[in-house]
Every structure is written in C-alpha cells, then in structure tokens.
C-alpha cells in the first residue's frame, strides 16, 4: 500500500506540536495533524485523555502552552489563530466556525426562542431584515427535522435530542467551513442518536464542511469520520483512516478500546 499523495495545496487547519499543561498534568502533548477542506476527523479516547482540552485549544477557546494552530481563512490564507487579535478570533468563531457543545445548554440561549437562536448568528454578521432571518431560520429548522410550529418556543421546552439538533442548525446557518463537535450524541438515547448521526452525516456530506468530532463512542466515528486519532493520556497513540484503525488496531490501548465495545 502506498502512502496517499498530498495534492491539496493547503490544509484548512494545521496543528503542530500543540501542548497544553494544567500544572503538573499534561492534558495534550505535542499533537500535530492537518485537516483538509471537507474532511471529518474523529478524536476518540477514554475519559480524561485530553480530547476536550484539545478541542478547546483548536477552537481558540484555550491558549495552548506550546505549538501552533493555523487556520486557512477565506481571505488571508493560513493564519496562526492565537496570533490574531481577540475581536478577529471572535469574528472567525462566529463566521467560519461552528461549535457544537456536548451540553446544548452551553451552546444555546435558553431564554430566546428557537428561531431567535438560529437567527442570532445571522444578526451577528449584520443581517437586518426580519423576513429574511425568519425564512432562513425556518429553512434550517426544516433541515434538522424540527417541527416548524415550535419555531417560537423556548429551547428549554425541547427534548434533549431536539435541543441538540437546534444547536446544530444554529451553528450551520452562516455556512461555516469548519465545525467542532464535542460529544454531539452524548446523553441521548440510541434511537435519537441514530437519527442525529444520520442527519449529521447528510449535512456534512451535503455542505462539504470539515469537522473535528470528539467522542468516546466508536459508532459515531465509524459513521462520521474519514480519519481517526486515538488519544491516550494526552498523546495521540494511533491515527489513520477510520476503518483501518478500527478494524486493525495496533496500539494496545486501541485494541482494548475496540474490544470493549458491547456487541448486542
């Protein structure tokens, strides 16, 4: 088997030597990878292995102690995310990126209606036409299979799965190029998980967004991710194509992880 030829001129996200420490604990140690436009990369590992820390470092929410995170903006090409000024970083986060939180309460405004939640990013980038915002919100609620009759209801009256879908709509409405997802199916029952995964897979393929998906659920990465990184104690111990890693695990921890999945 030959190594894949790198034809894409520049990656969308380039991470090199990223390290994050909390006192004596090293949450992420020297992590490097490239993410290309439209590609979905999965990060799996046990609880406390540094997955979420890595994700918040990537999404400009936590400055790493060493290493760089470079992102290819539409206008300026590859830029070091942490060298940008704070307003530029915040602009990037609400125009070119989306962040889907594990708990919808972190990603939604619970006292603003579903339509308002979806419309917020449109208004944040300067849309000042109510009819237009409303139409886009309806369009996105339909795409994530939410009942249009609930557009003016508060998210706190929604079920967990509906809140999660609303969060996805809210993030994708401005057409981001990169979405960070932290346990997108965490805390949902399996049938809802399956529908959500189906939906996510469709949207990711249809829109061509790149995504970094953090999860401890191997089924999620099997369905969504093109490539997989396995983290263990703050280090990436194995990476490769998803099927390759899952079907032929090399590192002892990956072998343990794969063999631990319950077979029904």
């Amino acid at each position, binding site marked *: 088997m030959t190594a894949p030829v790198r034809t894409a001129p520049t990656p969308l996200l380039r991470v090199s030597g990223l390290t994050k420490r909390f006192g004596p604990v090293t949450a992420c140690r020297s992590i490097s990878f490239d993410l290309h436009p439209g590609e979905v990369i999965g990060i799996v590992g046990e609880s406390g292995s540094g997955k979420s820390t890595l994700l918040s470092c990537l999404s400009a929410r936590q400055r790493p102690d060493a290493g760089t995170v470079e992102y290819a903006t539409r206008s300026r090409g590859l830029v070091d995310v942490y060298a940008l000024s704070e307003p530029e970083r915040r602009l990037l986060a609400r125009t070119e990126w989306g962040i889907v939180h594990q708990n919808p309460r972190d990603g939604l405004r619970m006292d603003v209606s579903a339509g*308002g939640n979806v419309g917020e990013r449109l*208004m*944040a980038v*300067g849309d*000042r036409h*109510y009819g237009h915002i409303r139409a886009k919100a309806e369009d996105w609620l339909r795409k994530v299979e939410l009942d249009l009759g609930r557009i003016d209801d508060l998210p706190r009256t929604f079920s967990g799965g509906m809140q999660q879908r609303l969060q996805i709509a809210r993030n994708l409405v401005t057409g981001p190029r990169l979405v960070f997802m932290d346990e997108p199916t965490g805390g949902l029952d399996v049938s809802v998980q399956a529908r959500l995964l189906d939906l996510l897979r469709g949207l990711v393929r249809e829109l061509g967004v790149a995504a970094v998906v953090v999860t401890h659920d191997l089924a999620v990465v099997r369905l969504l991710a093109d490539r997989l990184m396995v983290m263990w104690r703050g280090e990436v111990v194995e990476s490769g194509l998803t099927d390759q890693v899952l079907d032929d695990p090399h590192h002892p921890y990956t072998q343990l992880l794969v063999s631990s999945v319950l077979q029904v």
Partner: protein
Amino acid sequence: MTSGIGAAEPMQTTRAAIGDSDPDGADRYNYAYLDEQTKRMIRRCLLKALAVPGYQVPFGSREMPLPYGWGTGGIQVTASIIGPDDVLKVIDQGADDTTNAVSIRRFFARVAAVETTEATAEATVIQTRHRIPEQPLREGQILVYQVPQPEPLRKLEPREGETRKMHAYAEYGLMHVRLYEDIARFGRIATTYSYPVMVNGRHVMSPTPIPKFDNPKMGGNPAVQLFGAGREKRIYAVPPYTDVRSLDFEDHPFAIQRWDECCALCGAGDSYLDEVILDDRGGRMFVCSDTDHCGTRRARGHTGRLGADAATAAAAKPRGAAR
C-alpha cells in the same frame, strides 16, 4: 450653565452662604452635598463620557440620602455640575410635582442654594426620570437622566466581562435578537421603553426607561445629555448634536407611539399622553405626561375636551388637586 464642569474653586466660599436656619445641620455639608474630591472624580468621568459618546464610564458611586432606584446616579451627576447660578428643574415621569421630583428639588435648594423652577425654558439643569420634556431644549441646558440599568445587553447576556467585550468589539448582533423576539412573539417591535439606541454610529446605549416616543428627541439635541446610574456605578453621555439612532429591522422600521385622542386638558395632539381613570364605569381621559408643557399650553388659552371645566379637571387630576 454658567458654573458647570470645572468650577471647583468658588465652591469653598459658598458654605457659609447657604444660610440655613439650622447651624448644626446643613452647614456641615459641603456645597451641593458631595465633597469636592468626589465631584472632581465625577466631573472627570463626565468628560470622558462626553468624549466617547455612549460609552459607560465606571465611577465611584457614593451613598446618597435616598434609596437606590430613586435617582442616586442622577443626583450625584447633578451635584457635581450644579453651581449657585444654575436654575434647577426636576421631573419624574414628566411631572414636576411628584414626591421624588419635589424632594430632589428641595434637596438642591437646601444644599446648593440654587433657584428651582418648573418651567423647562428657564432651567439650566434638568434632572429627569423617564421623560424628555416636550419643549425642545436649547444650547446651554443640561439634561441629567436617572438610570436604573445602564447595560442594554444585560437581559440577554448576564456576564459583565462579556458585555464589556461586546461593546469594545462592537458586537451588537445580540441586541437585534431582543427585537427579533418581540416581532416573533407580538408581530411588531413591542418594546415601548428602554428602547436601545446606537450613539454616534459606535456604541449601543440604553436610553434609560424613557418611552420610545422620546427616542427621536435624543438625536441632534442641542443640550448636553448626561446619564448617571448610582447602583450600577456607571456614567455615560450624549454630547450636543450627536447622531442617535433607534435600532430596528429593515422591514420593521422604528416607530413611536401614537394616540387616537388629544390631551383632555390642553388639547395637544403631539405630546406623550398618560391615561387617567375617571370613575369605575370605564370613564377615562388622556393627559400630557409633561405637566409643564400642559400648563403652559393651557395658560396660552388652549383647551381640550375636559379642560374648559376647571372643576372636572381638578377633580380628575389628582396631581392638580394636591397643589
């Protein structure tokens, strides 16, 4: 405004000039109640606020002899800018004769020995709660607002650090979310007071709980507009002739309130009206909320539906009856 900002020097001599009959009481206070260092600190904040229109300047708010929510911010601003040559008017919801207005006016007459008035045209400093006078202000006048909540984004974003960043980076999308919610729920922008404004094209500002009827009066106003929030410890300002725009949507433009009736006492059709219940059989009338405006018009011979009958008017209008 003969003695406004920067007139600290002559204050020292006016203590004895207060001439209060109680030598152990009022004479102990400095001129205009606050000590000179405090007034200086507040004047500095006012200058900064005027230099950056709409920006909320933190200040060291002092305890005042009235409870929070009764105008502690406004009274500190007034105390810092007032001088013996000023003429003070205080209005509360447009009225000159409610408890709060009367108390504050009497307070300054006592501690600052200023002349007080109810006539908008004669006043040099007007402290207001919830209204802008109907009569257009002129250059040289100062309008001091009492502010309960200076942060227009607070209802949507409870974190102070976050709202400060939003102001710093001019991230005001969230303000429109509030207006969006109104239209989604009521079919129109239902916010009628504290209607957010954009000042000088840069800072979103809370105009305090004035009715949105008064919002258009803020823009391009020849008077200086100062805002003091005592509990929240913030001062902000709109300098004369500054652009103030009310936020809206392209397809839901900003509009002020309208009434089907005219003022029942003076017949004004262009003023902000209060509804007054006349009896328990559904009788009611609308009267100007600005008592000075209404009185001036009646003195000039304008009368409304109930204005001709003075007895009816006096009985129907408790404010008038109390005098």
